[in-house]
């Protein structure tokens, strides 16, 4: 199972990429994916992070399926 994790703004700068593809052998929850990302890039935790699952704010409890789109970004600052 492959999922894409997207990054924007400061999280894209921290990770050095706008997108990472992750593979999982067994079913995982979105929160597990996000934890894997913050473990791999611990300085992400210096920021006020928000998480999205298939273009909606994530609860962390969604079951992740092949092709899902996850995103990690900082508290928004539009306007």
């Amino acid at each position, binding site marked *: 199972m492959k999922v894409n994790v997207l990054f*924007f703004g400061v999280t894209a*700068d921290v990770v050095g990429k706008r997108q990472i593809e992750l593979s999982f052998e067994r079913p995982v929850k979105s929160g597990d994916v996000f934890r894997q990302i913050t473990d791999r890039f611990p300085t992400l935790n210096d920021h006020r992070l*928000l998480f999205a699952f298939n*273009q*909606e704010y994530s*609860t962390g409890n969604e079951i992740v399926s092949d092709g899902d789109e996850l995103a990690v*970004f900082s*508290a*928004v600052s*539009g306007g």
Partner: protein
Amino acid sequence: MKDILQLTTDPLDIGEIARRVVPPECGATVTLDGYVRQFTKGRETLYLIYEAYEPMALKEMKKVAVAAHDQFEISHVSIVHRLGRLEIGETSVVIAVAAPHRKAAFTACEWLIRELKRTVPIWKKEVYADGDEWIEGEVSARPSQV
């Protein structure tokens, strides 16, 4: 009537956006013109870069517009946010709310910009003479956390 919800890299014409939809039952349109501030807490900004998670931003803009219709006596909402590089004084966001009576339009417009700044995934980078910085929203404004 369908609301207008857009992201664009083109310059925003506030008057054109405000007047794009004038429902016949309405008597007032309240329009917010958000533009690039030169000085923030005494520090000078040279220009801004706006970036969005575009498909999600459009979904969240739709959600705030729908919620505004549920709460306020309004007829039409336009929300247009600019992306890319913006110079000092250029308009970054226009919110126009048309209503039969002005009071609901003022209230809804203020509510909409507050919600947009809280939930819509758009970020701004301030570019200063001596560096740059992605601006992060308030901790208390988090829509969700994992």
